[in-house]
């Protein structure tokens, strides 16, 4: 029986962590994820969890302590944002290459500079090739639910990769919404006990973790990580199916919102999907066949599934909340177009960089994207594939 509550995204994440009751949490506060370790340390102080809370002096140390704890055989978690993640960067790669199933909440924020504390996805995009599983959450409920599923994915013996649960800074992290919580007992039953096969504190099997990996070995170890990422797809699917049986809430690699009979569609991640759904509903009332593909699983990237889901469309817009500053497209656009090309599907496609540094993205703007798509759909011609949404420019 679910519990009806109202919580912010940060609270929902902290509550999920409390229910999971990990062995170690090491974290350093950074806006907008500060509240997660703040709430969690309250749970520690009140004796509501058995967790060892390590108040570290930097994010590099937060990830290092999390790695040490996980390698020792503990279940370890952390949370961060933007520049905190930047400071973790070295250890982010160590965590995944040592195959430690750490779970981290990433509350997405623009990576400075110029200094900005508001939401975009530049922090997440900066670690997209770091070997972490990355799940994105439209709202507080999804941030909570993804967190409950994370350990089952990360700790699966065919995966053993760290997982990052993303949500939009401020937009969901600080907005209070209605949410369905599960009971502590049910959560602990679903998440299960962490039973690593090899760990440092096992006196019966002394092991070395992270030894020097020279020219003859690193390539193979990286390929093992890539293999684990491929394996993760079926595990993420299975865990979501079990989760649905338990809670009734359905999760897939991506959500198809009125997509199957659509002619034009937007692809985006996190909270923008909520705004886009409202616009899709309005357009549908006017008879426009608009749809949405909301990507949940960004790493591993569901190339075949996405190309199949989009193949029937007349025009598609990919919304990137981070600019790759590469004189070409954003990261999501590149992944989606590459998926289409490799799978032999061609749909006219256009990229919009939007919402940078917390710039508000309105229904009107999303509607303008659908208008552009309707225009493209007429003859399939894309004049300029690399566009901005909501950028101020001098009128010419």
């Amino acid at each position: 029986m679910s519990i009806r509550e109202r919580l912010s995204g940060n609270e929902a994440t902290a509550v999920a962590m409390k229910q999971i009751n990990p062995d170690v949490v090491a974290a350093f506060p950074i806006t907008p994820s500060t509240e997660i370790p703040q709430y969690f340390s309250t749970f520690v102080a009140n004796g509501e969890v058995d967790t060892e809370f390590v108040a570290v002096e930097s994010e590099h140390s937060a990830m290092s302590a999390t790695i040490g704890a996980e390698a020792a055989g503990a279940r370890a978690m952390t949370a961060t944002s933007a520049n905190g993640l930047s400071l973790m960067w070295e250890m982010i790669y160590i965590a995944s290459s040592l195959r430690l199933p750490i779970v981290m909440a990433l509350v997405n924020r623009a990576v400075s500079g110029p200094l900005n504390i508001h939401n975009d996805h530049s922090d997440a995009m900066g670690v997209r090739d770091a070997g972490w599983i990355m799940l994105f959450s439209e709202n507080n409920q999804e941030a909570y639910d993804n967190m409950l599923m994370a350990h089952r994915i990360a700790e699966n013996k065919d995966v053993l990769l760290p997982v990052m649960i993303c949500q939009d800074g401020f937009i969901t992290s600080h907005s209070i919404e209605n949410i369905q919580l599960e009971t502590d007992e049910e959560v602990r039953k679903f998440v299960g006990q962490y039973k690593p096969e090899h760990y440092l504190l096992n006196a019966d099997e002394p092991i070395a973790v992270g030894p020097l990996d020279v020219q003859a070995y690193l390539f193979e170890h990286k390929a093992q990580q890539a293999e684990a990422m491929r394996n993760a797809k079926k595990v993420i699917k299975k865990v979501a199916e079990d989760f649905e049986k338990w809670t009734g809430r359905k999760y897939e690699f991506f959500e198809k919102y009125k997509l199957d009979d659509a002619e034009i569609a937007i692809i985006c991640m996190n909270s923008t999907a909520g705004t886009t759904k409202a616009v899709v509903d309005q357009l549908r009332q006017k008879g426009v066949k608009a749809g949405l593909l909301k990507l949940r699983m960004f790493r591993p990237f569901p190339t075949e599934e996405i190309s199949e889901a989009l193949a029937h469309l007349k025009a598609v817009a990919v919304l990137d909340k981070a600019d790759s500053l590469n004189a070409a497209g954003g990261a999501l656009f590149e992944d989606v177009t590459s998926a289409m090309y490799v799978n032999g599907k061609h749909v006219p496609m256009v990229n919009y960089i939007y919402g940078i540094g917390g710039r508000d993205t309105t229904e009107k703007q999303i509607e303008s994207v659908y208008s552009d798509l309707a225009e493209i759909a007429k003859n399939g011609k894309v004049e300029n594939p690399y566009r901005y949404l909501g950028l101020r420019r001098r009128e010419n």
Partner: protein
Amino acid sequence: MTEINAKTPMEDLTIGGDIYCAGNAREFKTGDWRSMKPIWLEEKCKQCGLCFPVCPDNAIPVGKDLKRKDYNYDYCKGCGVCAKVCPFKAIEMKEEGVE
């Protein structure tokens, strides 16, 4: 723990290169990193015992009689700390490969 080498396929390597046994540093011979080689001049050595505790690689074997023996060049990296602490000039540093 199974033996691995540069021909082992990726499927047979442990994840992350983890080593599921202890004391394996012995199998990693670091002596070929050496550019300078310490030479023990036994006739000058007073067996004072200052050299072997400072060796970072345990490359100076010590017998049950508590006397040092000649170098274990499989592990000596030629750092020269032993030569520096020797009060009797009984350790000479020579360029590796030059006789």
